């Protein structure tokens, strides 16, 4: 038992997180500006869920001759056709842009492609088409889902904590969401329904992390009524640091398993979540807590208008 238990974080760390908040703010601001810039200029690589169009995953008898297939499909007059190897050399992902002329046109195009590919394909692993109508609805539903969950989380945090915490949480969450969408834009990853699911999961993970830190800040605010807010935030962050890192590591271990072994279909999904854990952990330390401080939380708490929590009445530990 000499090496166990392994302590990743030595007890009583005294890292000055809050002192570095200016650097963090510059970094975050840069991240957000870059993300928004990329989203505005480069845009997102929307998948067929949102854009409409056709997606096929096919397996070829031998290693796929992607150029040959591309030439053949480009000649069909179906507009933009994109092919890529998908996970294995004999797996090809074919994306065809939305066909003009409504729902029926997409169906006809699928048939045309299947006829053109003929014997060059040993099996159709996936065929998806989304008509223009559904695509539009899915965008709406996706945006609504993200906005609603952010609002719901904000209301919950407001209800359980003080409004300053709720502002901190929403700023951190928006930061994470924008940075994630920005990453998708920078890397040109396909933005689809699974991405929306990933964003909501990231929001869920990030708020989880943030709430743990907030809980400790609230507790310490009641315990150490005269401690300067900067010291107090640093104390809270250091006290929760070990947990923050441990949970991030176990989650990352599981996500790495998805990313490496989960198959090509959910690789991007796994990647988004890994990024989300990193950015979520960062934002609960460097974004959420400093924002709470800027909102003058100390004045609200010490004037004694706090409700909830059972730790308040206890004697402070030394």
């Amino acid at each position, binding site marked *: *038992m000499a090496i*166990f*238990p*392994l302590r990743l974080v030595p*007890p*009583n760390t005294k890292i000055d997180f809050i002192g570095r908040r200016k650097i963090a703010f510059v970094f975050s601001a840069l991240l957000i500006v870059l993300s928004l810039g990329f989203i505005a200029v480069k845009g997102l690589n929307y998948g067929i869920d949102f854009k409409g169009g056709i997606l096929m*995953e096919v397996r070829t008898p031998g290693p796929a001759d992607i150029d040959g297939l591309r030439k053949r499909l480009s000649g069909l007059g179906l507009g933009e056709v994109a092919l890529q190897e998908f996970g294995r050399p004999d797996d090809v992902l074919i994306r065809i842009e939305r066909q003009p002329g*409504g*729902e029926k046109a997409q*169906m006809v195009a699928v048939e045309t492609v299947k006829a053109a590919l003929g014997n060059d394909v040993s*099996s159709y*692993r*996936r*065929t*998806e*088409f*989304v*008509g223009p109508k*559904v695509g539009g609805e899915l965008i709406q539903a*996706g945006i609504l*889902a993200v906005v*609603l*969950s952010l609002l*719901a989380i904000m209301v919950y*945090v407001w209800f*359980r904590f003080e409004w300053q915490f709720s502002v901190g949480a929403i700023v951190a969450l928006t930061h994470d969401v924008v940075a994630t969408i920005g990453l998708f834009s920078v890397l040109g990853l396909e933005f689809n*329904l699974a991405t*929306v*699911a990933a964003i*909501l*999961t990231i929001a*869920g993970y990030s*708020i*989880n*992390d943030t*709430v*743990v830190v907030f809980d400790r800040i609230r*507790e310490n605010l009641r315990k150490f009524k005269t401690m300067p807010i900067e010291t107090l935030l640093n104390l809270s962050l250091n006290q929760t640091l*070990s*947990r923050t890192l*441990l*949970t991030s590591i*176990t*989650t*990352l*271990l*599981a*996500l790495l*398993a*998805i990313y*490496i072994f*989960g*198959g090509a*279909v*959910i690789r991007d999904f796994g990647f988004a*979540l890994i990024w989300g854990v990193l950015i979520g952990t960062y934002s609960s330390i460097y974004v959420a807590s400093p924002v709470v401080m800027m909102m003058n939380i100390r004045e609200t708490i010490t004037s004694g208008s706090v409700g909830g*929590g*059972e*730790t308040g009445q206890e004697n402070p530990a*030394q």
Partner: protein
Amino acid sequence: MIHFSRWKIILILGLCSLGLVLAAPNLFSKEQLAGFPAWVPKSTLNLGLDLRGGSHLLLEVDLRSAFKERLANLVQAIRAELRSERIGYSRIGATRDQALVVIRDPDKKARRGRGGQTNIERAAKLLRRLEAGTEVDVSGARITVSYTVEARRERDSQVLQQSIEIVRRRVDEFGTTEPSIQSQGSNRILVQVPGLDDPERLKKVLGQTAKMTFHLLDERFGFGTPLPTVAPPGSFFAKQRPDKRQDLQGGPPGRVYVLKKRVVVSGEHLVDSQPSFDTGRPVVSFRFNTIGARKFGRVTQENVGKPFAILLDNEVISAPVIQGPILGGSGIITGGFTVSETQDLALLLRAGALPAPMTILEERTVGPDLGADSIAAGQIACIIGFILVLVFMVMAYGIFGVFANIALVLNMALLLGGLSLLQATLTLPGIAGIVLTIGMAVDANVLVFERIREEVASGRTPLSSVDAGYRRALTTIIDANLTTLIAAIILFEFGSGPVKGFAVTLSIGLVTSMFTAIMVTRLIVVTYLRLRRLQTLPI
């Protein structure tokens, strides 16, 4: 926090065993399960189409077109009613939402014996009792008949239900197991068919209305005569089905016919229809019910030697000449078909016509091999993620890590058991949700253990540290998990298909991980402390 009443211990152990029992069927194959006694739970995970392979089709029923047809019928009925009462009209027709008629001489007295009513009064009275659920509005000489909102809604839902029934009949003809057909919203049908060899055929079959009608040709414009520029009253233009093959009995593809509007007999009178052969050519044979047979018999008797046309969805599929009276009510359709076309046409005629046209809005088909690959990859990811987390937890917390791991295993059992019990659909993102749950499930334990470490550091006794650790971590655990749960529930509400599956596993995983961390690990830790009576905690 360190005292468990007896009933609580029993409840915790009971819930854990229940989870294990409910999860257990997933370890056995379907055949093995069938051999077990009846009282053994047999529900296994309900795999989504992306894992088992199959087609997901979202169809939209064109209610507008069904309504248009209904309005046209209403106009017909109004015309007949006014004619039989000899009330003149200068205009009759349907607007977008209502039937409209302009009465001629509205203020003139109607026929004798009608109580001195004027034409307009009489007409309004007649039209009011024409059809239930309509509203009649009179202004000057104009009468409009419109359907009430309720009547229209009721009819729309009828059309949707009928469409679902027809879709079900058509899908059943494919003979796959457990197709799911359900309505979505007011005008959509979601069809999910697992394990299908040929999704293209299914789409083709579902995309057709399959309304079959028999019409006589307008004799003034038979073969070889030039076509009029506008269809004469009582007749309409119909095109030969645009096919590459030439129909032996009809004209070339795209040929235009002038047909009588009156429907001799329609597909609703069909009782059976089968693919068949006639002198070596693939044909579709059909049989009418008594009413259909009588109508068909009479018309063929009266029109021997004349051509008639068989229309499917307003396209001529065949235009043969009546060789002699067909009295038995059965016949064949020749249309230059291939064998598979006769199979599909026979299927469509058997299943009946849709009350309104449908379009396929969305298709997602996954082949069985991709599904199997995804399951295999998902399993590997689960197992590896699981082992990594188990090893890490022991490294981080020693014996307490082992306790957390026991809870994690139970958590998995509860999660699988819960999914099996609820028959929630497990999708590929759902598997990702399970793996993510593995990673996040230990969080509650980590929170508690970290808290206990702090309490130990502040000089408390082992039991008191554990007590305080759990008590203080509890609100944090609940707050942190509830906020994540909010995101998961909203994801469930707004997500579709596979994404929904992800939200389900994530939500159940959050709930079970809270239970195992707060209840199960605590029970183990407390029991361990009571048995060992340690002076210092190995954490």
